[in-house]
């Protein structure tokens, strides 16, 4: 809106990785956009335009105060307000596992956007595995809540998610596995499924019978 505005705090590493995957001047829909940090950053650094969806009233006010377009809505209600292919990217960070039907949510993302970017906590991280071996639900930095009060109702591992991608026919364009510091650490390259705490996927749904170049 106005000039340079107040300086913006650095992005969470996970969001910084997403920024790198987004082309300048594109249109983006950010599902569960929080205080609008990603959209604000993309608008300033890459002239990206778009909207955030957010359910929390305080976050909605924060977005509005930051000049970020935000639509107050429940992700579980779907994306009926958005036309097919109306965005270059539909992004959802750390919300997939809290949805009633994550598989349908990604389908919707790929209907509305040409590409979808999702992140989720990897339930196959060694800490989670260790906790399960000890007979307990994991409490880890990425999964800090108790089993009875967590919002996460559909946790999955990197392997589970990739299996869903195959079954659903989603093409994985990019995969970034982030370690505990939400960076691409050395242990990750060695044993990705064990050391990945946050997984990021960039997906596309190939149009049946379509040829490249179709926008």
């Amino acid at each position, binding site marked *: *809106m*106005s000039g340079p505005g107040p300086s913006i705090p650095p992005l969470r590493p996970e969001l910084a990785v997403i920024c790198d995957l987004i082309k300048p001047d594109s249109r983006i829909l950010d599902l569960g956009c929080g205080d609008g940090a990603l959209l604000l950053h993309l608008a300033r650094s890459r002239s990206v335009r778009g*909207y955030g969806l957010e359910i929390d*009233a305080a976050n*909605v*006010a*924060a*977005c*509005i*105060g930051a*000049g*970020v*377009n*935000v*639509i*107050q*809505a429940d992700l579980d209600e779907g994306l009926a*307000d*958005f*036309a097919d292919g*109306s965005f270059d990217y539909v992004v959802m960070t750390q919300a997939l596992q809290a949805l009633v039907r994550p598989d349908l949510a990604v389908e919707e993302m790929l209907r509305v956007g040409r590409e979808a970017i999702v992140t989720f906590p990897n339930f196959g991280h060694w800490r989670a595995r260790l906790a399960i071996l000890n007979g307990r639900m994991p409490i880890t930095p990425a999964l800090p809540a108790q089993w009875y009060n967590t919002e996460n109702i559909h946790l999955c591992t990197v392997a589970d998610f990739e299996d869903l991608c195959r079954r659903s026919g989603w093409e994985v364009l990019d995969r970034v596995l982030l370690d505990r510091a939400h960076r691409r650490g050395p242990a990750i390259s060695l044993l990705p499924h064990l050391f990945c705490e946050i997984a990021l996927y960039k997906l596309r749904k190939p149009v049946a019978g379509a040829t490249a170049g179709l926008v």
Partner: protein
Amino acid sequence: MGAHEAGTSVGVVVPRRIGIETALTLDCGRTLPRHDLMVETYGELNADRSNAVLICHALSGDHHAAGYHSAGERKPGWWDSAIGPGKPIDTRRFHVVSLNNLGGCRGSTGPNTVDPATGQPHGPDFPIVTVRDWVRSQALLADALGIERWAAVIGGSLGGMQVMQWAIDLPQRVRHALVVAAAPKISAQNIAFNEIARQAILSDPEFHDGRYYAQNVVPSRGLKLARMLGHITYLSDVAMRARFGRLLRDGDGQFNFNFDVEFEVESYLRHQGQSFVERFDANTYLLMTKALDYFDPARDYGDDLAAAFRGAQARFLVVAFEADWRFSPERSREIVKALIAAGKEVSYALIDSDLGHDDFLLSLPDYHRVLHSYLGRVADEVGT
């Protein structure tokens, strides 16, 4: 007077009558050679005239949106909760313009003002005006005030419809459009409520085909009924239950077995109806409900609301209230959907509320935080 809290009230305000000397051709085909508008302003217009905000009123509103008309007055203007120093529509930063719309009954040219051609009140001969006519009239007012472009046009309910019409018809003159508790057009159910309200007035024996001024009477029973009906639709079931329940006015808890006021809710409705009769004109009420019924900006664009918005240049804030069933959140979502489809900048806030349609007049914290955040940025943008 303790009610005029120093610091948050605009204090005592003086309305003024502004003559619009330009002829105005209305949607119905008739032309008004000139008309008067009653106007109040709050806050200073800045040097480059960029900080002006227009307030559009709803069905029964008028130019008196904030402050008091005298030091002894108890009740402030209808949107005093939102307009004033430090309030969401901050008069330290904005020059706020509020008017009584054409066809109103609070001093602007309307059915109850004298037609110079006849020396009699216009009465039923006053043309039926539309939301689009109001926007034309308001644009002439902006010209008269030397305001090229509004920093924001703001309105709730029927006022929100005027905001949308501004953004569609005069895109270059609106920076920000704040559409609160509105709808892209009203439903059959809403038209039905309006029709009953009209029939109540039209069938009152003291209506005299709208020429009741000459008879020195007013169709008070009809107008009262119309307002009582309206009030039911402005409140949610939950709010009415919480406020009145089935409480009886007499403390003895016994039924009276007659038709006097017995339940608290009856008392409330009768009081609301009666006080409305004392301040409102029946012919204006008829006009206002008709303007509501006719509003449908998509109609000129093949019933495609997104197409209607395509030329808009404003950024939009759309606000709806959970408990509002007269102008429900679903209707606001239709506006948002069309704006998104048209590629417009829009934010949408759904406010958790209990009261109903009247929530837009309250200072609910979530609601005012959203208005404050949005308008704070608008003020920064226009350099005030």
